[in-house]
């Protein structure tokens, strides 16, 4: 396939993926907006109003970046894991596998689909947050960089989950038992400075901590983590997961017998 043909193939997957989640917007866009809206009301307004400032920001302002990022993480992941697993389960992944499309294009197409949903939900949640908080963005460049890299990373995570999944249960186990705990323990609702020394050290092995803090820096200009460390870790994860996904696709794991 020449470059033009590859671009058409890539565009086909991305368009298909975006149409897929857009068609079922009531299941894909609305629920995360309601959930995060409740976070703003309960944690931000009701409980947050009783708490003192953190790093010079009200509790509501402090948690907004993390909540937006949490929506992006969950939706990027959910989009790819559900879409790729369905295509595997119903065998229509074979439509792509029999075509001359290189594997990196298949992977990129699904990842960009996940990123699109993550960013769409993230944008809507950000709009909702303006009803509760009045945040000025500290650095648009850092904000966009962390949002896009995080969406890519969790889209890749969803892809790996879908490849290994053998049943619908398998696509909900990782989000329930791994993703949600890591997200909640990733410093969305607190600063790790508030933790005892031991748990501060333990928190450093949680990759979501680096993303939340980089996001918080982009929006508020404060972070528990050095920005270069945070970006280095995010980029390293993206490279490692992308390579691993490609290896799985090339070996045919879970999709070729």
């Amino acid at each position, binding site marked *: 396939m020449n470059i*033009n043909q590859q671009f*058409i193939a890539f565009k*086909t997957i991305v368009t*298909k993926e975006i149409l897929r989640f857009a068609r079922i917007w009531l299941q894909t866009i609305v629920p995360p907006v309601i959930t995060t809206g409740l976070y703003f009301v309960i944690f931000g307004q009701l409980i947050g109003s009783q708490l003192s400032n953190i790093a010079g920001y009200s509790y509501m302002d402090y948690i907004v970046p993390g909540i937006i990022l949490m929506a992006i993480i969950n939706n990027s992941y959910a989009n790819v894991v559900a879409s790729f697993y369905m295509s595997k389960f119903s065998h*229509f992944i*074979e*439509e792509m*596998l029999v*075509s001359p499309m290189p594997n990196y294009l298949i992977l990129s197409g699904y990842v960009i689909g996940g990123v699109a949903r993550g960013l769409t939900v993230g944008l809507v949640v950000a709009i909702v947050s303006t009803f509760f908080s009045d945040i000025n963005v500290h650095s648009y460049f850092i904000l966009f960089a962390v949002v896009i890299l995080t969406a890519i990373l969790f889209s890749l995570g969803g892809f790996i989950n879908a490849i290994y999944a053998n049943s619908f249960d398998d696509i909900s186990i990782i989000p329930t038992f791994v993703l949600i705990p890591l997200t909640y323990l990733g410093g969305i609702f607190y600063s790790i400075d508030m933790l005892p020394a031991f748990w501060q050290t333990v928190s450093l092995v949680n990759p979501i901590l680096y993303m939340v803090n980089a996001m918080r820096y982009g929006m508020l200009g404060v972070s528990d983590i050095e920005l270069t460390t945070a970006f280095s870790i995010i980029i390293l994860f993206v490279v490692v997961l992308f390579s691993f996904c490609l290896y799985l696709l090339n070996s045919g794991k879970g999709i*070729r017998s």
Partner: protein
Amino acid sequence: MTNALEIQDLHKTYKNGVQALRGIHLEVKQGDFFALLGPNGAGKSTAIGIISSLVNKSSGKVKIFGHDLDHELEKAKSFIGLVPQEFNFNQFEPTVEIVVNQAGYYGINRKVAYQRAEKYLKQLGLWEKRFVIGRELSGGMKRRLMIARALVHEPRMLILDEPTAGVDIEIRRSMWKFLKEINEQGTTIILTTHYLEEAETLCKNIAIISDGIVIENTGMQALLSKLHVETFVLNTEESLQDKLQGWGNDSSSECKVKQVDDITFEVEISRKYSFNNLFIELDKRNINISSLRSKSNRLEELFVHLIEEGSL
């Protein structure tokens, strides 16, 4: 001329230890209409899966129009259109989108893709259903949709794995006509089917796989000419009573006769035996025949013989 398909010493052992293919060799010429037959579990779908790169081979060589799957996978795949046995499209997408998206995966731009989708959906009688989602199509329509999808990138070789399974006779015959036409236009076709009449009607060459090996690979006519005996069922206008007595009871006879009921009997005729002698005998015995038919399809008789006994 390069062969459309060349398979050398192809082996496949699944992780559970099942040996699906045990060293098959095959050659399919360009423009051929080739039948790949065999009982359930013989290895046909595994072979097709390997050719279309949906199944990883254990060892062996596969070349598509001279392009080795191991070294020129993308090029080799670009020549193939696959119609699998199971429905493998997104059941929630409209018919036309399924075809157009498939074209997209081959790098065909949207405008050309829609033109081709229209052409093939019209030829296969599905254009009126273009906005209907996959799950709402009938079984026959789904099969035709998969053919349209496989043709949208205009492949040089079309592989059909039981394309007419569960399809009514009228649609089956219209599909035969369509497949014959595209074969006449130069597309090489490889067909697996359990309807042996279909293989006999359409195919020029044939391979029979049994237990993971090719047990017969020849021209259709050459294979049919190997049929030593053929059995016919005859119905009479009136009761046979004892009119068959003493006819064809001898085991060495070239014409063996077996009464089925009062007005029906079967005649097993050797290739050496002249039909004229049969009619003379019927006339001599004053038997008036109301109908005559072959007991089974000729290829079916050969197939059963080959599978059960391994040779003719």
